[in-house]
């Protein structure tokens, strides 16, 4: 990247220091204002998640009915999305630690996904949020398997990346879990075997729990419930003739038990499979959603990446600007922002990863104002556009070559943007 395209080449040291002071002030103002209103918000979201999850599980007890299956799967998917995005991601960032509540705290929280809280906090909170978009340092840039930036050298394996991106999308939680392992460091021999073993134990423990719950436990509960209801309706699964025949052959009791078991298999088996499919579908929906929102955070055309040289001796102001231009927002309704864990405000999140997500919408105008005054871009766009450019990049960079896309100019205020749109 030539120095002229560097997004903040026009800012001198003093301006960067002033900019850092302005961003710090936004952070401190919100921090000082946190209180009962914020606590009510996160407690409310947590309660909502649990209610929807209960509703989903109850509906799936009758998962053989198409309507119940669809409604239950929908509830479960929404519950999992809420739990991962607006609750898990943000609690694990320590956004709610200020409440000093032992039940909603980054040190005690675990989430409904395959990666362990501890491994994720390291790979995400520390590595990704510290070295955001620095090529060779930020392992979220391409997740070690994708060529997402034209500066990355091409390799024939990348030809398959449109395909395995689809797989990653569907099974995103497992991708994240494996990503936490830091395969690159293991291959380079930089990660002690003891740590690798510790991580593998963690992942397999979580995997076992998740699989047991979604693919054995709840299908079993649904199956038992369905069978119980079936037996209430029709205690005797045999025809009268069959009963008499069994009795005549002297196997009245054995015949009854066999018939009951056959009925359980028939009724319960179907329900087990239906709930299994519902859980699987809900997990896929959650994974596709999380993948989409997260990929839109840093990979749209608008975002900048940095070489390690560019960030040497980075000041606090420089750090803020890198976070600012390395991330991209998604516009949407309040409901969209709730379901995306407020990561539609990826820019604000990267500036202040430990600020409660519910405050991002509130400070966004202040961030935009800083961008306008300092001649910096404010990356944002609707989901369709952001997602479109992300997937275009994944397709294009599967092949050799590719040039950095033209970047947006400084933010000029909402009016200009609206006119352009």
């Amino acid at each position, binding site marked *: 990247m030539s120095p002229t395209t560097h997004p903040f080449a026009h800012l001198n040291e003093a301006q960067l220091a002033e900019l850092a002071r302005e961003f710090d002030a936004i952070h401190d103002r919100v921090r000082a204002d*946190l209180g*009962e209103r914020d606590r009510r918000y996160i407690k409310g979201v947590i309660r909502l998640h*649990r209610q929807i999850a*209960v509703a989903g599980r109850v509906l799936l007890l009758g998962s053989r009915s198409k309507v119940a299956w669809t409604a239950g799967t929908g509830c479960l998917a929404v519950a999992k999305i809420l739990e991962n995005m607006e609750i898990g991601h943000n609690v694990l960032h320590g956004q709610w630690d*200020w*409440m000093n509540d032992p*039940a909603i705290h980054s040190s005690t929280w675990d989430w409904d996904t395959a990666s362990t809280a501890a491994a994720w906090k390291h790979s995400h909170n520390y590595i990704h949020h510290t070295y955001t978009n620095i090529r060779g340092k930020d392992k979220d840039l391409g997740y070690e398997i994708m060529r997402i930036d034209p500066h990355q050298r091409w390799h024939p394996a990348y030809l398959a990346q449109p395909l395995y991106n689809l797989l990653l999308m569907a099974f995103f939680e497992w991708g994240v879990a494996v990503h936490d392992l830091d395969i690159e460091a293991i291959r380079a021999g930089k990660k002690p075997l003891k740590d690798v073993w510790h991580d593998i134990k963690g992942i397999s423990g979580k995997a076992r729990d998740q699989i047991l719950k979604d693919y054995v*436990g709840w299908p079993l509960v649904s199956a038992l419930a369905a069978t119980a209801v079936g037996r209430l309706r029709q205690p005797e699964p045999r025809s009268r003739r069959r009963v008499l025949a069994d009795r005549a052959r002297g196997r009245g009791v054995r015949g009854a038990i066999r018939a009951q078991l056959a009925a359980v298999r028939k009724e319960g088996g179907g329900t087990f499979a239906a709930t299994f499919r519902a859980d699987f579908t809900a997990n896929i929906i959650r994974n596709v959603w999380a993948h989409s929102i997260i990929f839109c955070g840093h990979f749209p055309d608008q975002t900048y990446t940095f070489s390690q040289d560019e960030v040497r001796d980075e000041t606090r102001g420089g750090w803020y600007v890198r976070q600012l231009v390395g991330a991209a927002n998604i516009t949407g309704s309040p409901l969209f922002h709730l379901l995306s864990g407020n990561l539609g405000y990826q820019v604000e999140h990267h500036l202040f990863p430990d600020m409660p997500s519910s405050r991002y919408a509130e400070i966004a105008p202040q961030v935009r104002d800083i961008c306008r005054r300092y001649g910096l871009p404010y990356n944002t766009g609707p989901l369709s556009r952001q997602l479109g450019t992300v997937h275009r990049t994944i397709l294009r960079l599967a092949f050799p070559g590719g040039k950095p896309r033209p970047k947006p100019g400084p933010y000029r205020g909402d009016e200009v943007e609206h006119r352009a749109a």
Partner: protein
Amino acid sequence: MAETGMRPPASPLRRRALRALRWLFTPLRPDDYLELINPLWSTRELRGRVERVEPERGGAATVLIRPGYDWVGHRPGQYVRLGVVIDGVHHWRAYSLTSSPDRADGLISVTPKKVDGGVVSPYLVEQARPGELVRLGEVEGSFTLPDRLGRGLLFVTAGSGITPVMSMLRHLADGPGLHDVVHIHSARDEDGVIFGDELAALEKQHEGFRLQLRITGRDGRFTPAELDTRCPDWRERESYACGPGELLDALQAHWTEHGTAVRLHHERFQPIVGGDGAEGAGGTVHFTHRNVDADCPPGTPILVAGEDAGVAMPFGCRVGVCHTCVLPIREGRIRDLRTNVVSEMHNEIVRTCVHGAEGRVTVDL
């Protein structure tokens, strides 16, 4: 990690049932759903519901709480850690239990006195409302009556130092009886005597309870030298003192010199942590993972030194009660700011809120 309440004594059957079902709810627990119905049902942490708040004299108020599970009970004179949510933030303070353990309605009470500039006591006295949830921590404290009441009792209290003794008096009045009890209580003025009416009533009803009220604004402060006239047989009595530090220091010195020190039990509300006359040379604290060096002057807890240097430190009660702020000390010498005992550490876990550095200390954080 944030400070938590006590694990309630749920029945083993219930616990086993919840554990058996846990795998269906992972990573949450059945409790997380049960508490949607009633927050007091949590088996993770003991909670209570505020039943009434009754104003007391002297800027105090009695907060009556219905504990969530079968309350483990307390011995008169003990204190409980109370977790209160104020403007979204959990605060924890230890308060003496003022209720008799024998209360028929099963309520427990604490009686905080409003501390100007404080956070929790003004809230409890002025804003706490019935129905509000509080968290209940461990019941602690060794300021308790002897198992056998073989000899007479002497209580010396001042100000809100009456609170642990009130529980003892109520317990004695309800049960074993107030047979040979002398109580010297000091307050600045007549209106400031917390439980004034109840104390007067107890004196009227019980022959064996002699109350000597001292209004210090009028009569000056009580000094231990007066014991010989006010309670000539003080040496023979099992004595309990609770009040400001100077009073306790004076009484301790008096008992050590003229009496039998083991007969004097005392309760300090604030552990002596640091302060102006702090001993030692202080030092620096190095936080290994944060790679931060913090200056730790004499009398400054490691917790405060770390916070001043911008390190996000785990903290809880800040007075050495709750063990939330514990961190491993890799090496170095630390000073217990309450006892001034200096010890050498190698990978030991200590409470950072009551220990200061003595020279260079390396902390694993």
